[in-house]
């Protein structure tokens, strides 16, 4: 059976070690960066209300203990980098990072979701087989790992790229160059290109089409040896360029380091040798790298192989299907955003909204408008204003708050206007629907008014 032949294939353990070190260090740095920017305070501690993912409203920030959560997350990332108690550290990292991301969906980013699922996958991958502290503790080092463990990382990265490429196959992106036509001219303050290229319409089109082709082709360019170096050059160029254009934080670095997994073993062995040299130059202790101290084992055997393989297969089936769930909903995806998240739709639309809530006493007919600043931070208000699930959750929060304050027969209506990809704003939610009576579910939200336009494509 060809599949069983494939699953018995072996490969050098070096790529996994490089990937593990890169992942751990980047995550460690991300947590420190997040902390130093004061975002734990402003995004998780200060807000009086947090937007939850459906079914996860039990995941809330822990007041000042939230810092402790980040401390645990950062520490586990560092332990992953050095390969100490790898599997336990990975498990703690996965749990703490995912918990952090679930605390408030205001801060949802595709690459945070990527980190969460990647760290889940890495639980099943022996990334500590070589060049780890675990080797020292156990006195064992593994030269090879099953080929599929390395390939699974490539598959996950390819899913991200290809789905984000497919998402660009729509009339706004390709035929109107939207939203790049809005974003790029606003970068007039960039040196050299700001006042020239960024202002030219053909550049907006070229970059829209270029971005689409990049996303769709890059996994293949990286897979084939002959195009790999060129592909990697494109990866660096593309991500550094988007880094200059947009405030996308750590994402470019994660993708660049991640793409190294596509390179052959010899390349990773060289990197590890380089690391070794640095460490040796820093400490005089030769002990750690004295190979005779280790029992060199040829292949790292996955324990409970069948179970692990079924979990990983199931994981990938879900990854393949999940981004397609939007097909189950009627209406325009970019407008309704039902099935938009967790689907690699990265920097895809420009959407702004304005939503004011009206609290009505059903019996007396009296009403008043809510000042959103009284309840939300400016980031929360911004995100809430154009996303239906945010609007509904906030409407319920307002309804509950005012009922608690003694208001009777509370109804909650919203005056909501949204502009998508440069279209003139239009009313977003049926203003006659009492949102306090609407329940969150995975069903289609009938109270979203349809977009007065059609966007063709996937």
């Amino acid at each position: 059976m060809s599949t069983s032949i494939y699953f018995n294939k072996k490969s050098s353990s070096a790529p996994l070690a490089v990937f593990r070190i890169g992942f751990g260090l980047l995550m460690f740095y991300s947590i420190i960066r997040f902390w130093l920017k004061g975002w734990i305070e402003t995004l998780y501690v200060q807000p009086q209300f947090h937007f939850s993912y459906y079914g996860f409203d039990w995941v809330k920030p822990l007041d000042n203990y939230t810092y402790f959560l980040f401390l645990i997350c950062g520490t586990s990332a560092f332990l992953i980098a050095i390969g100490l108690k790898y599997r336990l550290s990975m498990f703690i990292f996965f749990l703490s990072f995912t918990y952090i991301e679930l605390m408030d969906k205001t801060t949802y980013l595709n690459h945070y979701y990527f980190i969460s699922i990647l760290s889940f996958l890495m639980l099943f991958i022996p990334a500590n087989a070589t060049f780890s502290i675990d080797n020292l503790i156990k006195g064992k080092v593994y030269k090879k790992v099953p080929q599929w463990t390395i390939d699974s990382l490539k598959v996950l990265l390819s899913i991200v790229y290809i789905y984000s490429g497919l998402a660009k196959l729509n009339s706004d992106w390709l035929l109107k160059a939207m939203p790049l036509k809005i974003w790029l001219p606003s970068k007039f303050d960039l040196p050299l290109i700001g006042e020239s290229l960024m202002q030219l319409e053909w550049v907006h089109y070229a970059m829209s089409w270029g971005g689409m082709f990049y996303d769709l082709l890059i996994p293949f360019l990286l897979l084939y040896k002959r195009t790999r170096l060129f592909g990697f050059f494109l990866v660096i160029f593309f991500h550094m360029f988007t880094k200059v254009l947009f405030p996308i934080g750590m994402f470019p670095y994660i993708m660049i380091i991640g793409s190294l997994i596509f390179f052959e073993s010899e390349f990773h062995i060289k990197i590890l040798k380089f690391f070794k040299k640095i460490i040796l130059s820093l400490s005089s202790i030769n002990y750690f790298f004295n190979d005779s101290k280790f029992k060199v084992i040829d292949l790292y055997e996955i324990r409970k192989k069948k179970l692990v393989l079924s979990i990983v297969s199931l994981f990938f089936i879900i990854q393949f299907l999940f981004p397609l769930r939007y097909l189950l909903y009627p209406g325009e995806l970019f407008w309704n955003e039902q099935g938009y998240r967790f689907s690699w739709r990265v920097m895809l639309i420009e959407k702004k909204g304005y939503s004011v809530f009206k609290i009505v006493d059903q019996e007396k007919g009296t009403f008043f408008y809510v000042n959103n600043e009284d309840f939300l931070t400016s980031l929360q208000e911004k995100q809430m204003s154009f996303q239906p699930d945010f609007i509904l959750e906030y409407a319920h929060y307002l309804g509950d708050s005012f009922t608690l304050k003694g208001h009777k027969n509370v109804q909650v209506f919203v005056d909501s206007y949204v502009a998508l990809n440069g279209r003139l704003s239009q009313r977003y939610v049926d203003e006659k629907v009492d949102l306090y009576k609407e329940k969150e579910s995975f069903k289609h939200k009938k109270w979203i008014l349809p977009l007065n336009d059609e966007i063709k494509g996937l």
Partner: protein
Amino acid sequence: MFKKISLLFFISFILINCSGSGDDNVDDNQLLSYDRSKMLIHWADKIIIPAHTAFKETLTNLDNSTTNFVASPNQTNLDDLRSKWLISYKSWQHIEMFDIGKAEEIYFKSKMNVYPIDKTWLNNNIEKGSYDLESPNNYSSQGFPALDYMLYGIGLDDVSILNKYTKNTNYTNYLTALVNKMVSGTDIVINDWTAYRTTFINSFENTASSSVNLLTNDFIYYYEKGLRANKVGIPAGVFSGGPLNGNVESFYKKDISKDLLLEALGATIKFFNGTSYDGLSSGPSLKSYLSHLNSNKEGSSLDSEITVKLNSALTQVNSLSNNFVIQIESDNSKLLVTYDALQAVVVLLKVDMLQAFNINVDYVDADGD
């Protein structure tokens, strides 16, 4: 094959970069993007600074009249002082939206126009004869609304008002202190503009702290809170479930609430259109910036859409009674309709215009993706 493609890509990248640096050497005055720098110069030299200078003149007159009135508190001097106060209050409506630089730093607008006043606190100040007008506790006991009370509200008629000033120097002292505070605050802001102008006009990037973004946000914020909410929405009761007529602007003089609103709305329209303060010329503006970006939306363009909505708001305001207290008591629904007309513009400014400019509603510090 692949090598050839890579070579092709390489060459195209180099070409892109070369044409990029090449274009940059072209005459600086011929920008492809909207010339924000020119817009900032126009804003500073033709709108903001002249508006401040004109305001300062009205304030100097107000100050002189106060001196006369304090020296001899009689009906003639009271009438004169009242008329100077009104002229200055109208002039202020052209200033309040420029909450930037020094004005923002010293909480200028909070010291000039917070209403309703805190009557108990204010009377306490008069009685005690000592107060710190710098303190945020005193924001609702100073500025134009406090003068409104001092000139119209401390007695049932002019005789009893004059009596307060003739019999108790605490009143004349507080009046003088209020006007002095307004003059000194204005001096600080105006003097700073001499130096701040350079910083202001050179900061045309698209960052959270650049002049264009700051002032655009200030303009919208003013329109939304200072004008729409404070002058109309709050008194009409849209945030409270019932009208609050004590919250109208100039509650004691009463019959000028519409005039003040018209003045303020006129000032915002002028700023949006880029009309100079003296009304004689016009220049680069939010409106022309929008039409440059050609944000053409199904037939009508955004800049004219905003103008249409601003004008219909203006029509609504014109249909109101001069006295908003009376308007609220007789037919509050007219004020509610006015609120809706003003609100329609907020949506276009905050959603559509900011989207076209790609400016954030406020400084939001977090990563995107």
